[in-house]
């Protein structure tokens, strides 16, 4: 049968471009058609499900965002940059970025250019299902017959472009295969262990493009071809003679595509299709409300299981704890394994590095918090005392604080009196008028409760603190603890009051000339606290100040790649030994350039790093304090 078909092909030489088959159909397209139909239906149902699980409020938000030109433009830009070009990966690991963009963008262009080609040369095959528009552009080179004599320049350009794109994709695939063998070469220390569906999809993906090359190479003498396919055709002819039996390669190509699409929903490759949705959701300002449904579902399927979070996760200080990384967390979520997801959700330090480095931007800390919320939000508490205290405290502060700075040290800073003392010295030296909000006692900011998933309880502490701060009449709320800062910025509504971290504040004092500091020659390194850096995006202000007081060295991982000190309040179940290991790895990163001192700007980090570092560890305010030039001298 196959032989007969190929024989007939050679008997007639067409005039111009004609269909080799009157119906433009061959059985080999079936696997592809089944696959693409399956995935389209699956996607449709999935989309409906996710939208259904969104809250009404969120659905309206989403709808509005789609018609808002600003967000619409951002959506397009993000989808283009994140889903196709993978600029985020490019920035950190160029080779890995090239690999991803080659496969994604290359494939995308192959589809787009392929369709344009069909639209230009055989437009009727795009007009309706009857003419095979579902599969025709994919297998165009099989169904078309072009007499080389009638080849136009326009046609040749497409031949070239298509072959070039195929080569582009193949280069990506080549790298991907190499990565499987030697991941470190592409800058990854840890890679994920693929599941069965992952493997099927992966091998299909690997095979699709080489098979396409083979198939198009076989038919290049009939359909025409570019710099890749045509020489390949000559080679085949040289080896196999004129009687080319090319149908099996087209079958294989179609089967791989079909299998890939069928395996897709069960594999990591679902991210290709989900990521755009996630981008829309994110740009619409939606938040994770349920740990598995709605937005979370979009996040879960958007995870590409690339494993970049394995290298990012501070848990990788011990191999046994790698299992708590986001990629596995998401995998267990996908499988509805409640026991495992709960365990991982509670273990996580919530340092946010996986989120910061995730090429897709899966906010797994938010999902972890949502899981904790289901566990812990219903715990009863008795916070009636907060109101009583807030009332009293507000009364005490209200007169004397009007128009001044209100300094809130927070719970933890009371275990590091150095920070408080240094802050007061700085405030006094720079002539600032301030009141101390929690000198003797105070209410927790609510961040620890929030991190533990006790949202309702956190709201109560937020309410009480808000009353004190608002009633005080202060204009600036000065914080020395980044844990507090994060929640004050995110969850408090303090209109008219500037919430500022002491790193920012001191930077401003120096810039405004209110605080004079001298520079010493000692080499220091700065540890970015998670809540301050990744949490609030404050990286430069502390560095500005530190450069003014000492020689600032670099850590091997810093800014948004900074390694958590291990003692984060984010974790609920990580034990002391594991915390200590993480602290060690954090310190070893800080010691990359042999600094003489380590500086940080968080009471938790301060205590954690101090317990492991062999060089002196100082708080940010403390080191500034040491370098204050006495104003009286001038």
């Amino acid at each position: 049968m196959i032989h007969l078909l190929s024989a007939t092909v050679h008997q007639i030489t067409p005039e111009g471009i004609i269909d080799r088959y009157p119906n433009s159909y061959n059985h080999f397209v079936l696997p592809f058609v089944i696959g693409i139909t399956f995935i389209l239906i699956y996607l449709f149902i999935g989309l409906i499900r996710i939208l259904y699980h969104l809250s009404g409020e969120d659905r309206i938000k989403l709808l509005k965002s789609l018609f808002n030109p600003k967000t619409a433009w951002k959506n397009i830009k993000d989808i283009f940059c994140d889903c196709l070009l993978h600029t985020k990966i490019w920035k950190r690991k160029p080779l890995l970025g090239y690999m991803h963009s080659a496969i994604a963008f290359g494939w995308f262009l192959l589809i787009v250019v392929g369709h344009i080609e069909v639209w230009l040369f055989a437009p009727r095959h795009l007009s309706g299902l009857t003419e095979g528009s579902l599969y025709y552009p994919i297998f165009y080179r099989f169904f078309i017959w072009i007499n080389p004599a009638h080849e136009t320049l326009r046609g040749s350009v497409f031949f070239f472009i298509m072959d070039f794109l195929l080569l582009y994709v193949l280069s990506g695939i080549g790298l991907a295969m190499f990565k499987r063998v030697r991941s470190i070469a592409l800058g990854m220390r840890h890679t994920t262990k693929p599941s069965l569906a992952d493997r099927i999809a992966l091998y299909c993906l690997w095979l699709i493009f080489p098979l396409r090359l083979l198939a198009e190479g076989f038919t290049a003498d009939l359909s025409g071809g570019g710099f890749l396919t045509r020489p390949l055709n000559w080679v085949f002819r040289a080896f196999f003679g004129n009687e080319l039996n090319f149908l099996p390669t087209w079958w294989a190509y179609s089967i791989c595509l079909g299998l890939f699409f069928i395996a897709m929903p069960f594999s990591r490759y679902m991210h290709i299709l989900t990521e755009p949705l996630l981008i829309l959701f994110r740009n619409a300002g939606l938040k994770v409300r349920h740990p598995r449904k709605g937005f979370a579902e979009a996040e879960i399927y958007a995870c590409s299981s690339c494993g970049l979070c394995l290298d990012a996760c501070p848990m990788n200080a011990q191999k046994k704890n790698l299992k708590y990384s986001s990629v596995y967390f998401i995998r267990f979520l996908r499988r509805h394994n409640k026991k495992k997801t709960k365990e991982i959700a509670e273990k996580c330090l919530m340092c946010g590095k996986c989120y910061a480095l995730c090429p897709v931007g899966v906010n797994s800390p938010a999902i972890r918090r949502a899981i904790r919320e289901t566990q812990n939000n219903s715990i009863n508490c008795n916070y009636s005392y907060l109101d009583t205290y807030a009332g009293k405290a507000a009364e005490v502060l209200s007169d004397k604080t009007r128009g001044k700075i209100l300094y809130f040290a927070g719970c933890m800073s009371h275990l590091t009196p150095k920070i408080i003392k240094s802050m007061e010295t700085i405030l006094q030296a720079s002539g600032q008028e301030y009141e101390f909000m929690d000198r003797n006692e105070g209410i927790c900011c609510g961040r620890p409760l929030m991190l533990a998933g006790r949202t309702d309880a956190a709201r109560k502490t937020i309410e009480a603190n808000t009353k004190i701060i608002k009633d005080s009449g202060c204009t600036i709320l000065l914080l020395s603890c980044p844990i507090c800062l994060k929640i004050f910025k995110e969850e408090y509504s303090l209109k008219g009051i500037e919430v500022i971290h002491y790193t920012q504040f001191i930077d401003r004092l120096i810039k405004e000339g209110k605080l004079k500091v001298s520079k010493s020659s000692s080499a220091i390194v700065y540890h970015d606290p998670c809540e301050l850096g990744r949490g609030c995006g404050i990286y430069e202000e502390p560095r500005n100040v530190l450069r003014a007081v000492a020689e600032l060295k670099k850590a091997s991982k810093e800014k948004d790649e900074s390694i958590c000190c291990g003692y984060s309040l984010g974790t609920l179940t990580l034990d002391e030994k594991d915390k200590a290991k993480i602290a060690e790895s954090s310190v070893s990163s800080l010691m990359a350039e042999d600094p003489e001192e380590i500086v940080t700007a968080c009471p938790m980090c301060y205590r954690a790093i101090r317990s492991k570092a062999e060089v002196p560890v100082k708080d940010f305010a403390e080191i500034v304090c040491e370098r204050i030039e006495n104003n009286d001298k001038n």
Partner: protein
Amino acid sequence: MIDFGFSVSPSSRINLDNADKEKFARLAIAEPDVLKCMACGSCTASCTAGAFEDTSLRRAILSLQNGLSDDASKLLSHCMLCGKCTMVCPRGINTRHLILSIQKIYSL
């Protein structure tokens, strides 16, 4: 019944035979650190909520061991989970998870 103007007063004695050991065992599985407390009192001394209300993890643990779970719940009901006790505990007890675990297991 005659009202004599006085009656048998309840005993303040702890009866360990009546302590719910099964529940405590569940707690020890959820957070084994509960067994490590050496009653130094650092947690109580540093407690943020303790400035306002009677709050003590040490005594809560003790109350649970003594089968007085209501007392324990009361002693933790004001906790804001701030984590100071985790920082100061010399035995490295994961106090926040312990508190959450107590609150969950003994609220049933």
